[in-house]
């Protein structure tokens, strides 16, 4: 335990470090630059969280090229802030407009909006923010406690273990995706294949480039993410007529009553615990956490008859859980270098832009970066409570901005971001193509998230497969041989997951669960 405090100390020193900064040709000495980036991150996160129609994936993808000019720590602090900041902002829209500002606040709509209709929007917002804050603090500690031992284990991994781990990660991502299992697996494989486009590192052969020189370095990850999420989201939003009913005047007093506080304690604790656990799972994260927490709370709460009619538990539990899940989903990223969801895949992209190979060595080789990022989450959560409670009025104003003004702006920022990757029009062309692919996939009931995960893991998987096969002299059993118990364990777990989920009874349960989420 002492070690953690010492390490968190290193992190806080890094976060609060004063450094010289040059901007607009002026150089300022002693600027707390990392804190400023954290503030910008959580501010942007809240902003896009509040705005329906743009999520953290598109935003982070948009800002990736920009982070090139930042230091690694500043870049990662800012991008992380966007993700957990979005969890705070999303609840505001859910409560006031009955539209999830963020996909992870879908379930908050159910009871949060009902509370707003009863004139209790203020307490609902406060509950969401305070629950999120508590969960954020606890889950930061969870990250600090669990990451080091996991990284220690991961350091011993060879190519076979890594390959099997990625298989497990992809399988769990598939299991947790909506809809058909086979289609989700197919999307993962399509992603893996698209990830292979470009120069093959082993042989130097240009694969699937068709003489297009811009494809020599492969398809940019940002391009795919912006197309499949950003462009696709805009088109999908334009399909529907805009209608919003905002409870702006009736927010009233923010402070929950004593009775509210008494009722929210247990759900917040349970939500935090469940969210932290679900966030660590590959394929997990904020979305799964909030949904799981709501279902759990509905089952065991003694106020379960009030659920859907404005129960404060129905706001407290999922909002704590989604923030906890958002933060603990950094654990697999920081320790194994494996993304558990699309946002984490983008974080890997950000690390690679900065020349950092994600993996267990980050903690030992760059302790300032590692612990600085964890410490920044604490600071960021504190900022978020201030941003979201006293300043709630700003965000409510923002909700009255019509979408027809917002989407051209979003599109412009995306286009600028994509263009700046290589300063060539081709990337924007590709972005439009992936937007089209994403749109078609959505119409055919195929989720884009598994494709993105596969895309980022494609080259890594091939590399590790090749190395493992070379080391074993072509023996495919190396992945499940008793001499590699960890690899065997991962693969058995992956197969078990697939078998379990394919069983008819559970399959029905899973469909039922997702159906409940859709309503």
């Amino acid at each position, binding site marked *: 335990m002492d070690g953690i405090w010492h390490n968190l100390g290193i992190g806080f020193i890094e976060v609060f470090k004063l450094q010289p900064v040059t901007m607009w040709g002026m150089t300022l000495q002693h600027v707390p630059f990392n804190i400023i980036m954290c503030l910008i991150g959580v501010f942007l996160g809240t902003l896009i969280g509040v705005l329906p129609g743009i999520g953290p994936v598109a935003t982070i993808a948009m800002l990736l090229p920009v982070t090139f000019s930042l230091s690694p720590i500043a870049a990662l602090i800012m991008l992380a802030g966007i993700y957990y900041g979005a969890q705070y902002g999303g609840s505001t829209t859910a409560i006031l407009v009955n539209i999830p500002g963020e996909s992870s606040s879908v379930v908050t709509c159910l009871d949060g909006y009902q509370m707003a209709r009863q004139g209790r929007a203020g307490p609902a917002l406060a509950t969401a923010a305070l629950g999120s804050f508590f969960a954020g603090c606890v889950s930061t500690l969870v990250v600090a406690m669990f990451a080091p031992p996991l990284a220690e284990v991961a350091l011993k991994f060879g190519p076979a273990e890594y390959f099997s781990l990625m298989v497990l990660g992809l399988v769990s991502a598939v299991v947790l995706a909506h809809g058909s299992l086979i*289609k989700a697996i197919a999307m993962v494989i399509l992603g893996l294949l698209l990830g292979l486009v470009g120069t093959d590192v082993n042989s130097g052969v240009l694969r699937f480039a068709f003489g297009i020189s811009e494809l020599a370095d492969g398809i940019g990850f940002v391009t795919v993410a912006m197309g499949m999420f950003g462009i696709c989201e805009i088109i999908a939003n334009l399909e529907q007529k805009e209608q919003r009913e905002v409870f702006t005047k009736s927010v009233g007093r923010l402070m929950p009553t004593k009775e509210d506080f008494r009722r929210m304690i247990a759900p917040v604790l349970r939500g935090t615990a469940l969210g932290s656990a679900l966030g660590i799972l590959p394929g997990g994260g904020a979305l799964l956490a909030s949904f799981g927490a709501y279902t759990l709370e509905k089952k065991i709460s003694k106020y379960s008859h009030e659920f859907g009619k404005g129960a404060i538990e129905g706001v407290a539990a999922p909002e704590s859980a989604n923030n906890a899940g958002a933060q603990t989903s950094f654990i697999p990223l920081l320790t194994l270098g494996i993304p558990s969801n699309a946002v984490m895949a983008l974080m890997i992209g950000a690390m690679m832009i900065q020349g950092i190979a994600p993996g267990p060595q980050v903690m030992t080789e760059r302790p300032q970066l590692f612990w600085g990022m964890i410490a920044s989450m604490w600071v960021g959560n504190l900022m978020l409570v201030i941003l979201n409670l006293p300043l709630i009025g700003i965000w409510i104003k923002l909700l009255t901005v019509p979408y027809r003004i917002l989407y051209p702006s979003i599109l412009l920022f995306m286009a600028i971001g994509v263009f700046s990757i290589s300063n060539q029009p081709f990337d924007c062309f590709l972005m439009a193509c992936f937007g089209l692919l994403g749109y078609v996939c959505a119409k055919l009931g195929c989720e884009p998230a598994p494709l993105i995960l596969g895309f980022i893991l494609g080259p890594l998987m091939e590399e590790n497969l090749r190395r493992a096969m070379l080391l074993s002299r072509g023996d495919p059993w190396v992945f499940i041989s008793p001499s590699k118990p960890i690899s065997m364990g991962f693969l058995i777990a992956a197969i078990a997951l697939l078998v379990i989920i394919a069983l008819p009874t559970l399959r029905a349960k899973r469909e039922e669960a997702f159906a409940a989420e859709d309503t």
Partner: protein
Amino acid sequence: MGMKIKSQQDFWAGLMFIAFGLFFVVFSVGTPEFLDNLLGTRLIHGYQMGSAVRMGPAYFPVMLGGLLAVLGAIVLVDSLVEEGPAIAAFHFRPLIFIAISSLAFAYLLKPLGLVVASVALVFISAYGGHEFKWKEVAIVSAVLVVGSVLVFVKGLLLPFPVCPDFINNCPIR
């Protein structure tokens, strides 16, 4: 006897996966020999397969592409057996205008500069929405142009031209 498609979504998804799978397989191994003989030329060259010990560039894509095609076939067969949802209607207006606007931006940026490219993007994309109000769009594009020049060109120093190519003394650079 005509087979009845019970799930439109799955039917087309299956076809899409099969197409993608075969695409990657064919481009990895090249066109089959009989086809080359028939055409008298090697149509697609393909890459080296290698062995399990030393995998060539074609090995992994062929494995995956094959798997994708098989999964696609399963989805396809399933669509003839199990009932599923129909495909929701395509909305071509936003789709086309959003795509064109980002292409216009990309291909106008180098010759005509950030100002013209941004205005083009905003106007074309706004036209893809439900309502198009000239004045409003003009104001939005003006604000966005000023903002993006300040933030991206001045602040983040992205190497974008601001003015068109043919103007020699651009006031902003």
